[in-house]
């Protein structure tokens, strides 16, 4: 998956270029040396938006003193097998965010067809389908909905994918493997 991810990143480059072209005020110089300040403000305003949005079940906040590293929290949606569980995420934003997607990983073990044992997530918008229009909030919402609607066609966790059909068994498995972090 790591290789795929790399390939996806390469795929992503033209995408960013087009965005840059679409936004002429962003000069080339600015892009080559992505001023930390603009990314900073971008993340800052995203944080503010996220905080004020008040979406239930998703949350994220920058760590200690680094606005590029966030901790996220997602709770399983109602009426899914993940109901009542809470998952911690880590979000690492690249310095050229939002032109590149952040690296998002599960910190809490998650028994899910599209999440591997290391917490890596296979989600198209975090790879080839990334767009600078996405923000932290949409990422978190996407991941939250991914929990309830996995893409079993390209699983990272084949056991989970195969079990998905039996929701009752799956629920038991989720409960068995769920280890909430303190």
């Amino acid at each position, binding site marked *: 998956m790591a290789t795929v991810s790399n390939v996806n990143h390469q795929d992503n480059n033209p995408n960013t270029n087009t965005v840059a072209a679409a936004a002429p005020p962003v000069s080339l110089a600015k892009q080559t040396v992505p001023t930390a300040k603009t990314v900073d403000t971008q993340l*800052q305003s995203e944080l503010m938006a996220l*905080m004020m949005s*008040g979406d239930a079940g998703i949350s994220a*906040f920058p760590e*200690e003193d680094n606005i590029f590293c966030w*901790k996220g929290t997602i709770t399983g949606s109602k009426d899914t097998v993940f109901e009542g569980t809470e998952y911690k995420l880590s979000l690492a934003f690249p310095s050229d965010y939002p032109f590149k997607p952040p690296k998002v990983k599960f910190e809490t073990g998650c028994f899910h067809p599209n999440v591997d044992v290391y917490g890596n997530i296979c989600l198209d918008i975090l790879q080839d389908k990334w767009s600078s229009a996405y923000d932290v909030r949409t990422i978190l919402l996407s991941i939250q909905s991914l929990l309830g609607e996995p893409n079993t066609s390209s699983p990272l966790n084949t056991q989970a994918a195969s079990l998905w059909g039996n929701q009752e068994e799956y629920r038991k498995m989720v409960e068995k493997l769920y280890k909430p972090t303190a």
Partner: protein
Amino acid sequence: MAANYSERIHIAGTHSAWQENLLGGGGELSLDSDFVSHVRNLCSRGLESLIVEHFLCSVEVSAHFIFIYPSERNQIDGWGVKEDYSADEISFAAGTFEKMGHQGFGSILMSTEILQFLIWKINIFCMFGNSLSCNLLDQQSAMQDILHKALEEIISEKQYQGKCLLMLVHALEMCRGNDGMDLDCKTAEMDIDGAHHHKSTLGNNKLVRNIGVVVRDLRSLGFTSIAEDAYASAIFLLLKSKVRELAGDEFRFSVLESIKGFKNEIASTGLRIKDHVEYLHSAVPLQFLHAPCLLGESKSYESPSSGLKSPLASHLSFTHYGTGIPSEGLVRWQLRLEYFAYETLQDLRIAKLFEIIVDYPDSSPAIEDLKLCLEYTGQHSKLVDSFIAALKYRLLTAGASTNDILHQYVSTIKALRTIDPAGVFLEAVGEPIREYLRGRKDTIKCIVTMLTDGAGGNPSGPGSTGDSLLEELNRDEENQENSSLDDDANTDDKQAWMNAQSWEPDPVEADSLKGGRYRRKVDILGMIVSIIGSKDHLVNEYRVMLAEKLLNKSDYDIDSEIRTLELLKIHFGESSMQKCEIMLNDLIDSKRTNTNIKATLKLQPQPVADVGEHELSLDNLNATIISSNFWPPIQDEALNIPGPVDRLLSDYAKRFNEIKTPRKLLWKKNLGTVKLELQFEDRTLQFSVTPLHASIISQFEDQTSWTSKNLAAAVGVPVDVLNRRIYFWINKNQYKSGDHKFTLVEALVESGKTPVNTGSYEELLVGDEEGETSVASVEDQLRKEMTVYEKFITGMLTNFGSMALDRIHNTLKMFCIGDPPYDKSLQQLQGFLVGLVAEEKLELRDGMYFLKK
């Protein structure tokens, strides 16, 4: 043998009788030789042991009841002198006593009487020892024991001694009352107190001589240090009680001068005694000498002038008695006495400092005294410690109102800046108060009220303290400016005003000693602002209060507000008061616009009155037009007002739009005041109420009974609001409430009251009621800001689990930099978090905050 025996008994009887006579104080000098011969006689018969035993026994017994008086002491002293005792014996006795004195007395206060008693004992001892010189060594230990016991007895009599001492002190004070230096009289009184029966005419000399002898004896016995301690204790006790008596609880007058006078008196007395002693013995000067009963003059000073001319002032004493240079000892004694006097007064004042400051302006003489004392003793830290303790115990408690604390704080500032212009100690004392006040919610409000109120109200009213603090500050300021500019001939009032305007509060830490001419007193306002942290908060609070005040005004009279604002501008600067100024300008403009609109309306034909009975013209309407951007957020509350009034308002708005074309008028219908007259069947009442109250009552014009639900719908407010407000009318007996229905009470007869107040005009400040302010308070604004922070806090706690206070604070500072940037202090955040914990949104465990699950 029998004869021998009887003789012995006889002799023993004689001896003992004699001895008792002697010890009883009635002894005659002539018996002395008899006594010696008796003793010799007895000794020759080998009865030394008997004599010794008996004598010692007598001494022991006498110790129980004999309290030696000067006459007896004198007499025995006479013997002592007469007896040719050897120096060895004296030194032996002295050694014994010194030792015993140290063991037995320790730190016990020894009065002169004890010492006299001791002297007397020593003399007896010496005399007796002399007559039995051969056996002396054998009896040494026995005598030592006995005398030791005797000394213990003396100690047990200490209480009595103390009483005597007090009597002496008292007598001395009484004498002082008799025009101070009437020494003879004093001596006489002392003599009476001491049950001394010698002739009062001879009293002076005799007493002085006695003292001289005592002193000499004491010195020769090596008692100097003990005696001095005793003198010192006695004189200090005397001085202390005098100071207490003079100072007492009276803070309105300066007592320092009289204390000084008294001290000098004591000093001069002491000096004279000392001189006398020096004259008598020309020996090493004692440091001081106290003997309340001896104010007589020695022979050398017996000239009639000395008694009369005895100057109270110490320097005169020096010139008079020193007849040259005062000895070092005298000066030292003088200084010591002075220090003690100052210290006593200072301690007294410090202990009462809290009370003194409570009635500060009246008690300023006491403060002045304290200042002088502190300058002398330098014990400022004592003041700080004691005062802080008093503050914590008496002021900074939940029971004290914020207003009281603030007033005390201001008084403290004023009082302490007298004592300590540099403000160092004030800083130390003020810190606990400030710390405490920061924890109170209504502090800012109280400060603003204190600063501004009184200027607008009725200064002579019983409730108000007269002038506002601000007025007072300004007066001080102007006085200062004027005095400092007096030397400039060309300075006029305008210049002074300019200077006053350019005034900026000094930082509290500023060294006020800097710059002689611009040297300024401790800045009260700065100290008060430092409670809040920044002047912005203060200004903001004032803005809210001002808005409230202005909106409740029915006329456009804002003179007092303008004055207050000008004063505030002086202290806080023009720019920070800008919004307030706009608010006031709004009022002035409103007045003009109001008149204008009415004038134009009059030119037009009057619109036909809507309803005949409820005829309303624009004359009845006065509008306050505000530029809402500059006003604090105004509480909006939907409200249906009666149709005629509503039409009137829209007419007015239309006219406004015509006159000030691009601008439109938006009514805040819930604000303002309605003056209305209610006509009942049997009475007419006038009220001044809020629009909501007026709307409610107007609904009853057509329908005398409403359910609360329907009424709420008609008025356009929620039912609970209606229920709260309608109680105003119920309390005024206009309605009956029952079964959720309100019925108009047409006649008061049924409520059993006579309409005595028909036609009376009731003034009501409805706006003062809790939660009915027209302007969002500072707390509300803060609350709104805090909801943003609450979301952030929830966000970070969701992701980090638990966080300590300072981490939350730092995180907010770092990441919450949006529209209302996080600018709160750690304390404010803590207060907010405590609120969240109380709302059960958060949990606090071991200093860490958690989200409540």
